[in-house]
Structure formats: structure tokens, C-alpha cells
């Protein structure tokens, strides 16, 4: 992997006596697309504001390129931010907005003009130099906010829920645009969102956060396929989270029935949670299933049918391209490698586990 560009070391932050971040540790690499993902109030925006210099941590250090920048004000940092709701300067033209940072750095007019042209080309808004921000659509304003930040050639671009105010279609378009821009610029993106789909689509690395703690760090694939705890499993995509008992290595008892699995090292007769994705629940004829149940709900979702199957007293969420009508008796089969075993949190507090990396 590329070299480490940013390190957050033991960062804690509280507001009005309420802990928002608790000894958070995180490394961000050069040229990486990192997404901080979590529900509102999880500390992801605070983390970003600490990176940008808009909030200072109570304890801990921020190291950027080997240099401690914890106490350095935002205007002296080599990072730029794309703010929620754009924060464009409404009294300036698009060109003046983009030129703002460059003029402060006293760049020459020809350099500034070149940069404006380059940035507008990058965000596909050539010819918008003399428009006012208010005359642009939300998506266009968003692009200008990005252009305004990147002309300063930051090593890291911080993006705070930048697509939150856009409608669904535009959001999806912008996701591809952002990936393209990042590849073209070759810089690090730190992206904050509560939208798991955005995170899965764009990121190299996803940092799932909850209640001020990092829950899991990993590639989109590993976060989706191998959630480390119930919070991550529940937050990323739909899933069946079922209390179970690990009988021995590679054998788990779910709702009274034994299933083969591939996990080892959980001990014997240990209570655990299992995660089974709805698309991994395979419906078969009753006789062919590991357990049997009845279809109770059915919705057509376009690419697949979503069904609920009551079996062994649990409502299983099932995605399948084959239709099983409501009331039909079915068998449920799960391949061993699709059963993800997770340690059970022993108390409420431990549900949010701090993970050091």
C-alpha cells in the first residue's frame, strides 16, 4: 500500500460533556478514497472537521505528512474541504469563487485564469465563469464547490456529505464523476456520508463509525461480506442477524438446527450472532432444505423478489429471482461460506468496540 499521509492518533472530543470521539486512531494513505460511514451523531463529521482544522481535539494529535498539524489553523493546512450545502460565496461570480484561494496566495492573473479554465473543464462546467452561484442548480453548485477546492492543489480533499442535498439520479451520476475526478487528480479523498450505497460504490476503504468509535475498517467487499459485528452488518445492506450458538469449529446451531459453516476459533458452545445476507438464503423444496418454513410476505423489487419466510420462529429476509407465493411451504438452504459468525457483545456498551489498527 502507498505511504501513510495522515495519522489521527488517540483523538478524543466532547461537546457539552458528551463524548463524540473516544480515542480514535486512523491512518489514511496517499491517493486513497476513504469514506467515513455511519449514522448521524457517530462522530464522522467531527473527525472531518478536526482534519480540516475547524474543530480541535480535546486530546490526541493529527499528523500530516510526518508533521504535527493539530494546532495549525485551517488557512495554513494543505487540505481543502467541500462543505455540506456547498457554502459558495453568493456575492461572487463562479470565477471569483474559484479564484478566491489563489488570489490569497497571490498567484498571477494568467495562472489563475488557467486554473479556472482547467477546474471548470474538470467538473464539466466550461463557460460558467461569469454566472452567479444562485443561478446554478444544486448539482452544478456542488461541482463549483469541488472546483473551488481543487484549484488550490490540496494533497487531500475533504468532502462532507457533498451529495446529501441532491436527488437520487444526480447523486448516482456524481458518484461516478467523483471517482473520475479523483483518478484524474491523483489525490486523497476523505469522504463523509451516512449513505452505505455511496460508500460501497466509491471507496477504496470504508471506515464504519458508531457512537464515536470505529466499528470496522476495510474494503467495501470485506465490510459487506465479513461484517465484524452486528452494527456493521445491520448498517451495511439488509441482513438476517440471528442469535446462535457455536457448537464447535465449523458447526453452528441456529434456531435449534445445526448448520455447517467455515469459521473457526470461536470456542465450544459459545453464544454468537450470525449474519446471513438475504441473497444468500436459498429457497428450495421443503424436503431439500436444512430447515422448513412458510412464505409470509412477497414484494416484487424489479431485479428480484423480496420475501419473508417464517421458519423456526424467525422471519427470514430472502432475495430471490424465483417466485414463491405467499403461503407456500419452502425449505431454506444456506451455503457454509455464506454464514458469517460474529462475537456477541456481552453488554450494551461493548456493542461499540474500539478497534485499534
Amino acid at each position, binding site marked *: 500500500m502507498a505511504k501513510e499521509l495522515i495519522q489521527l492518533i488517540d483523538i478524543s472530543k466532547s461537546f457539552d460533556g458528551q463524548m463524540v470521539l473516544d480515542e480514535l486512531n486512523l491512518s489514511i494513505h496517499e491517493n486513497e478514497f476513504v469514506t467515513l460511514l455511519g449514522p448521524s451523531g457517530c462522530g464522522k463529521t467531527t473527525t472531518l472537521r478536526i482534519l*480540516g*482544522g*475547524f474543530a480541535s481535539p480535546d486530546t490526541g494529535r493529527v499528523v500530516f505528512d510526518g508533521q504535527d498539524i493539530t494546532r495549525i489553523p*485551517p*488557512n495554513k493546512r494543505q*487540505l481543502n474541504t467541500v462543505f455540506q450545502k456547498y457554502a*459558495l460565496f453568493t456575492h461572487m461570480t463562479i470565477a471569483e469563487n474559484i479564484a478566491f484561494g489563489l488570489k490569497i496566495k497571490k498567484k498571477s492573473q494568467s495562472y489563475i485564469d488557467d486554473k479556472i479554465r482547467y477546474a471548470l473543464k474538470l467538473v464539466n462546467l466550461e463557460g460558467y465563469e461569469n454566472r452567479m452561484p444562485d443561478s446554478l442548480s444544486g448539482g452544478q453548485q456542488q461541482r463549483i464547490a469541488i472546483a473551488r477546492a481543487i484549484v488550490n492543489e490540496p494533497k487531500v480533499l475533504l468532502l462532507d456529505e457533498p451529495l446529501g442535498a441532491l436527488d437520487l439520479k444526480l447523486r448516482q451520476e456524481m458518484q461516478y464523476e467523483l471517482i473520475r475526478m479523483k483518478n484524474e487528480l491523483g489525490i486523497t479523498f476523505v469522504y463523509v456520508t451516512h449513505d452505505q450505497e455511496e460508500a460501497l460504490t466509491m471507496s477504496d476503504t470504508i471506515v464504519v463509525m458508531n457512537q464515536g468509535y470505529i466499528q470496522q475498517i476495510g474494503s467495501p467487499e470485506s465490510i459487506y461480506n465479513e461484517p465484524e459485528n452486528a452494527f456493521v452488518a445491520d448498517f451495511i445492506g439488509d441482513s438476517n442477524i440471528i442469535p446462535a450458538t457455536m457448537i464447535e469449529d465449523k458447526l453452528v446451531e441456529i434456531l435449534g438446527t445445526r448448520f455447517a459453516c467455515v469459521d473457526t476459533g470461536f470456542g465450544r458452545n459459545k453464544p454468537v450472532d450470525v449474519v446471513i445476507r438475504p441473497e444468500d438464503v436459498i429457497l428450495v423444496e421443503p424436503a431439500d432444505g436444512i430447515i422448513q418454513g412458510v412464505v409470509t410476505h412477497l414484494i416484487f423489487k424489479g431485479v428480484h423478489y423480496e420475501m419473508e419466510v417464517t421458519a423456526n420462529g424467525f422471519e427470514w429476509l430472502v432475495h430471490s429471482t424465483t417466485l414463491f407465493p405467499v403461503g407456500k411451504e419452502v425449505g431454506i438452504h444456506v451455503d457454509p461460506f455464506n454464514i458469517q459468525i460474529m462475537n456477541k457483545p456481552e453488554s450494551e456498551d461493548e456493542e461499540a468496540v474500539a478497534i485499534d489498527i
Partner: protein
Amino acid sequence: MTSNKKWLSVPYIFWSALFIVVPLGMILYYGLTDRTGAFTLDNIIAITTAGHAKALRLSLLLSLISTIICFLLAYPLAMILSQVQMKRHNFIILIFILPMWMNFLLRTLAWQTLLEKNGVINHLLTFLHLPAIKIINTPAAIILGMVYNFLPFMILPLYNALAKIDPNVINAAHDLGADHLHTFTRIILPLSIPGIISGVTMVFIPALTTFVISSLLGGGKLLLIGDVIDQEFTRTSNWHLGSGLSMVLMIFILVNMVLSAIFDKEGEGSML
């Protein structure tokens, strides 16, 4: 629905025509005629006579100084207040409206008690071994009275304009490398222009046209243009001359309205 709504506007259109437009027409009529009803410009030209011109000059000077002082006092205050949490918005507005519930004349009169040769402030200054001040019955006292009475009308529009600025816009300026001074001159000040225009209007116009403050704190010897007009109506009863002089005042008001219309299109700098 829409056709019903049209009828709803009738009472107000009628009201504003009768009590706003027609009365202004009356001033124009009186201002442009003499006692016999014949057309004349004399009532307007009368502003150039020595006494009237002096009163207008003094009014302009004092109201200009008061407006500048109000602005300089109110801007830092509005900036500090705009950083206070939004949920205390109503409370902040109340603090500055509340003094209006004490009668305007009495409040101004109280400054006499405070400023007099043997007044409260001088007692205090003597107690602190500081030299006494002598500003009662001087233009300085009139300025103080104007600043005192109209300061809230500067504070509130400025506060409203500044509180509307998204904190992230200021963060964005810092993020792009601007220091505090730069952020202030390039971002905060330009974004608060609607509030400035509105505040300046709401201080300058009443200050320019006031006629009580000068007689209460200026000792009655300093005549402002407002005093002159008041006298034409209540003592000499020359309504034609009073109307003509009012029309001169309205020129300043019109200029102000045009300026506000240009800079404050959305009515963003409103007081409420």
C-alpha cells in the same frame, strides 16, 4: 381560490391608496402651490434661504455622524450576537426592542438628568476624580440622543444579515487560505450589505428628520430641519412652506429607497 383571493386584496389596496398615496399627493399639492392655490416653486426654493439651509446642513451633518457612530457601535455587537445560538434569536431581538416600551420622550429626557452639569454622569466622574463633561445643550448631546434612540434600528438588521451567513461559508474562506481580516473584508462584509443598507436607512432617515431630540437635548437653540417644518405646521401655520420643505426631505428619502432597492433585492436586511 385565485378569484376569491383577488377580492381579498381590495380592502388593503383601498387603504394604502387613501392613507399612503393620496396624502403624499397632498404634500405635493401644498408644496407646489401658494395660499391662493397658484402654482409656485417658492416653497421648495425656500430651502436655500440662510436659516433653512443652515438647519438642513446641521441636520445632515448630525444625522450623518450619528449614523456612522451607530454603524461602528452596532457592527461588532451584531457580529458577536450572530455567533450566539439560533434558539436565542428571539431573546436577542427582545433586548433591543424592549427599551421602546419606555416612552421615547421620557427616555430622551432622562439623558438630561444623566448629562446635566450636576447630573448623574458628572457626579460619577467627579467621584472618580475625572474632569466633568459639558455636552448638554450642544450638538454632541443631540448626536448622543440620536444614537441612543436609533441604535436598535441599526443593530437588528445587521444582526439578521450576519446571522443568516452559513458558518460553513466562513469556514470555506478559512479553508481556502484566508486569514481573519481577509475573511471579514472579502466575505462577511459584502454578505452583510443588505443589512448595512437597511440599518443605515433606518437610522439616517429618522435622525435627519427628527424634531424632538434637538429641543430636548440641544436646549432649543439649535434648529434642525425637522424643527423648522414642525414650526411651519404647528405655529406659523404656513402649510405650503412646510410641505415644500418636506418635499426636499423626501428627495433624500427617495435616494435612500432607490439605493435599498438596488442593494437589497430580496428584502433580506429586514428588521424582523
